[in-house]
């Protein structure tokens, strides 16, 4: 990395995240002055224009790519129109030990005096909680599911290649044409469409103004610069910001700056989940890279430095903190912007290129918390790119995660997308599949599968509160066969998914009418053509997802019930429930037997895995293909982010031997420590569920650095991944564990039973090793662990997206 990059990187790592009231103040003053004057879309667009016109412009020393969402790096704005932080929220954010955000006294005062009085009761969050049913609220409070849109706007959006071909001037022309083409006599929605399209045009103007203000500041700084080199750089920045986003980019620098302006605009306009992502950056940049090298205006070194400056920009933008109960939890600064590397071209050819490798080098060298990166691995992806990615993976940052592009395409074809759109799509956030630039693929909330089982074991009553949350199903002792019991689980599932979905439909319509996103609509096909907002079904594709959590735990519970109660008849289900309600107090031997001697998902054991498939297929039947309010359909995803910790904390003891309050399994990974037959068995188990029917299924694997240290280990890891993907596996990511984890495993072996370590010429489960051998391996691992400078691991085992 160059000295400049090192300075930019250091400055980004050293900057402390803080809350800035800037956006809240501007938004509030605009709403107070203009309430009722405009249609909703135009109001949103004009308030966005007000932000772009008045927010502080930052242009830091050494910077090449410019623009910050806040007045300075890591100053995070708030979105009171979506969720209005309370004074207590702000105080917790300021003082909590992990992932804190500095909140000044002035900010608290501004919130007390101006922001809260206006937005309390007007924010989307407040209105959503007013609008949903009692059943929904009860289930939500009990930890049956979460709701994404009570904290942030619909998001998970990724850009395609359109900005590399068109400037704002072009988009505005398209908008004008759409307005001119409105059928005022035949289309009852003509007025709504015109308002929406006008809002889009205003949003384009806002972004143009935002860029011009950067150009002006760059020129001002250039005039004051003493160093002629910096002066030249600033003049170049001014030139870049004058040309983009007005016109299509002319060179590599302009392409990156253009994307960055779009990124800032999207995450300033609203606070969409998972921020925003550039998608296939390597593919999009390639023409500019090659042209620059050919005509001598770019060198590989200069391109790399620009990309590094671009990466620093992502790292400067921590996730806006949540409000309410979740503020006390240690969240993450990661906002899940995710760059795709490799993949396919729309015509089906391999999409990887020299920039794919360059990006991997930068990930390796910079190891920043943000942006996330993922390798899109298709059958056509060269082995060299996979190996390169695995060399980065083995350093233990958890990046890049690896996706099966062929499965990702097939998933989208199943949803009815065109082949070209599917190939140009990919993954964002954690593991979510979408058609980049053409889809609103909305995550609606995590769903606690184990809690559904808990209700089934208690006739629909929540054991701790005594409230009837689920259906009134039969008492535990009345089930005569396992199939009867499973049928009751199915009935609870059906009822609770309906409760969740009714809430989803409500919230979806509220966002469509109350909180449009005009600029995001400009960048998403076919919002302009349809004259419809991104949040109202304007996108070409509109899938809504529910994220199911705990399939591993659920499977192990079902397997334990079947074996213990129905096969072995070792005890009645009623007695088992009593032991669970007592959190296994006085039945420790039973608990250990349940943990160690019942079939477990993750071991390629059909006894257990068939139950995983049965539960999974039930989810598909309940959810997949049901219509949402935007002309799209509901789909299933299997991913937890960190909700398996929260869900576990509100779920009692379970038949798999898990005590009350402990985490559930995450993604489609086995219960922590339950997989005992090595990685091939985990992959086999995981692939028994049909990932093609989902929009993403997350699998985490743990390895020690030594297992991957030599070329042999690396090659075989590549083979493992290819074989998993042959079985239609959607995604895998690797935690390369360090000595610290091994020490934890020594202290709590039951939670780390799946940890494989390289011993000597062979590998073994760490917890099965003699203590002194464990100590030896710890010392060895400590030695072999690579130092991670500055950035915390984004994907430690406890905090896995």
């Amino acid at each position, binding site marked *: 990395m160059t000295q400049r990059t090192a300075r930019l990187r250091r400055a980004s790592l050293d900057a402390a995240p803080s809350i800035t009231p800037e956006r809240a103040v501007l938004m509030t003053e605009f709403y107070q002055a203009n309430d009722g004057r405009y249609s909703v879309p135009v109001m949103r667009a004009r308030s966005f224009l007000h932000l772009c016109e008045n927010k502080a412009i930052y242009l830091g020393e050494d910077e090449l790519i410019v623009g910050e969402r806040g007045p300075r790096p890591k100053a995070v704005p708030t979105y009171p129109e979506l969720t209005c932080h309370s004074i207590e929220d702000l105080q917790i954010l300021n003082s909590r030990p992990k992932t804190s955000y500095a909140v000044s006294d002035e900010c608290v005062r501004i919130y007390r005096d101006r922001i809260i009085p206006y937005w309390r009761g007007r924010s989307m969050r407040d209105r959503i909680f007013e609008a949903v049913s009692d059943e929904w609220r009860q289930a939500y409070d009990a930890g049956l599911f979460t709701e994404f849109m009570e904290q942030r706007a619909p998001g998970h959006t990724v850009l395609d290649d359109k900005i590399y071909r068109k400037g704002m001037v072009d988009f505005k022309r398209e908008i004008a044409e759409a307005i001119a083409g409105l059928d005022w006599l035949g289309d009852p929605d003509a007025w709504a469409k015109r308002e929406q399209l006008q809002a889009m045009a205003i949003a384009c103007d806002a972004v143009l103004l935002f860029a011009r203000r950067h150009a002006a500041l760059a020129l001002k700084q250039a005039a004051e610069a003493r160093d002629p080199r910096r002066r030249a750089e600033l003049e170049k920045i001014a030139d870049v910001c004058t040309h983009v986003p007005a016109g299509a980019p002319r060179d590599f620098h302009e392409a990156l700056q253009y994307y960055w302006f779009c990124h800032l605009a999207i995450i300033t306009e609203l606070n969409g989940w998972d921020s925003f992502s550039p998608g296939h950056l390597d593919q999009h940049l390639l023409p500019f890279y090659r042209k620059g090298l050919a005509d001598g205006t770019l060198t590989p070194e200069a391109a790399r430095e620009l990309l590094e400056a671009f990466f620093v920009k992502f790292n400067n933008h921590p996730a806006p903190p949540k409000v309410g109960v979740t503020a006390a939890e240690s969240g993450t600064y990661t906002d899940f912007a995710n760059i795709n590397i490799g993949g396919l071209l729309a015509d089906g050819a391999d999409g990887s290129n020299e920039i794919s490798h360059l990006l991997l080098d930068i990930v390796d060298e910079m190891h920043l918390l943000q942006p996330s990166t993922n390798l899109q691995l298709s059958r056509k992806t060269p082995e060299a790119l996979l190996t390169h990615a695995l060399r980065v993976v083995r350093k233990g940052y958890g990046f890049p995660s690896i996706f099966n592009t062929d499965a990702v395409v097939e998933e989208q074809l199943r949803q009815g997308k065109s082949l070209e759109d599917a190939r140009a799509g990919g993954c964002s956030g954690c593991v979510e599949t979408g058609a980049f630039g053409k889809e609103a693929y909305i995550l609606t909330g995590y769903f606690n599968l184990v809690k559904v089982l808990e209700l089934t074991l208690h006739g629909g009553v929540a054991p701790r509160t005594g409230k009837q949350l689920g259906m009134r199903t039969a008492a535990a002792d009345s089930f005569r066969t396992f199939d009867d019991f499973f049928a009751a689980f199915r009935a609870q599932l059906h009822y609770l998914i309906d409760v969740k979905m009714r809430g989803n439909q409500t919230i979806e319509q509220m966002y469509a009418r109350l909180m449009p996103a005009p600029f995001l609509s400009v960048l998403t096909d076919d919002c302009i053509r349809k004259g419809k907002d991104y949040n109202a079904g304007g996108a070409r594709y509109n899938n809504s997802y529910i994220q199911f959590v705990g399939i591993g735990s659920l499977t192990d519970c079902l397997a334990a019930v079947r074996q213990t109660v129905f096969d072995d008849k070792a005890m009645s289900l009623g007695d088992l429930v009593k032991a669970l309600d007592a959190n296994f107090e006085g039945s*420790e*031997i*039973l608990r*250990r*037997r349940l*943990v*160690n*001697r019942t079939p477990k998902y993750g071991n*390629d054991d059909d006894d257990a895995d068939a139950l995983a498939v049965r539960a999974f297929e039930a989810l598909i039947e309940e959810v997949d293909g049901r219509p949402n309010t935007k002309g799209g359909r509901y789909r299933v995803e299997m991913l937890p982010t960190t909700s398996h910790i929260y869900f576990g904390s509100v779920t009692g003891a379970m038949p798999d031997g898990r005590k009350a309050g402990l985490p559930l399994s995450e993604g489609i990974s086995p219960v922590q420590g339950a997989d005992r*037959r*090595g*990685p*091939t*068995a985990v*992959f*086999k188990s995981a692939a028994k569920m049909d990932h093609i029917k989902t929009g993403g299924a997350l699998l985490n694997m743990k390895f020690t650095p030594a297992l991957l240290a*030599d070329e*042999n*280990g690396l*090659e*075989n890891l590549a*083979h*493992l991944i*290819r*074989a998993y993907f*042959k*079985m239609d596996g959607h995604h895998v990511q690797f935690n390369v564990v360090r000595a610290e984890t091994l020490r934890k495993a020594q202290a709590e*072996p039951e939670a780390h039973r799946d940890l494989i370590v390289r*011993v*000597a*010429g*062979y*590998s*073994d489960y760490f*917890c*099965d*090793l*003699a*203590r*002194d*051998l464990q100590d030896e391996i710890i010392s060895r691992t400590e030695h072999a662990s690579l130092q991670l400078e500055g950035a915390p691991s984004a994907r430690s085992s406890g905090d896995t997206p």
Partner: protein
Amino acid sequence: MAPHKDGYHRVNMGIEARKSSGAISDPPGAGAGQSGLVFDIQRYSIHDGPGIRTTVFMKGCPLDCWWCHNPESQSAEPEIVVSEGRCVRCGECLKVCPNGRVSGSAGAEGPPCTLCGACVAACPTGARKLAGERMTVGTCVAEVLKDRIFYEDSGGGVTFSGGEPLLQPRFLKRLLEACRGAGLHTAVDTCGFAPWDDLLAVAPLTTLFLYDLKGADSRSHMDHTGVSSALILDNLRALGAVHNNLWLRVPILPGLNDDDAQLEAMASLAASIAGVRQVNLLPYHQTGMHKFRQLGRAYRLEGLVPPSPERMEEVAARFRAFGLKVRVGG
């Protein structure tokens, strides 16, 4: 290469384990090799031949190498093994033992364990296990075939190891036939101490032999492995003449087999055998020490320091000087 279930130790040490002569056969009751004693089956085995493999560890070994890192695999009988790390001293095993003797300690008094397995079934933690399960060819191969998709991409397959797989020659032959029939790459990891006819019988079914060469000095070999090297060396020469894919696995044991004369002799021997494709030099490590101690047996290489990576490179260079393909490690 030996089984990996470290941390377990056997409790019925009274059973005579080792064979001290060349009298090798399938265990009694094995029929015509339809079933055999399998100690463990390890999937994702990446150090026992090329690619991703499943290694079937067969129980029993005619040798008694001082450095053995799995001394519990030496006995050719099933045995109950206990993982101290998993045992929570709940006493469930004691309640069910017909002899009332189960204690988890190697030298317990009382009538010998009959391997009835009641304690294994009763154990709530899985700390007690029966090591040396009698498996049929069908069961064993079904387990091996579970990972076929991983073999295909990686050029992997199945490895039969031990113990010493040729201690159960008919069982091994049937396993190899079934695996080859299924189109798998097959490897046999052997110490070479077996009747020539048994080796010859499995050779056409074996894609790759992993053949141990533990020293060139016959006296030292006898001292440190308990058997003469003559049969092993004769077999190696004979096998190298009829089979074209052998990897020699040479443990490097400082002071025992790494003097100039022995290294020279082993390298020269390896180079003289047409079928030898590769030599794997395996640096001595102390893993076995912990296990010998757990078994209440004396570790006879106390204080022996593993060779440094630099030393291993030196040794590798000597082998390479003979034109051999050499790899340090499995």
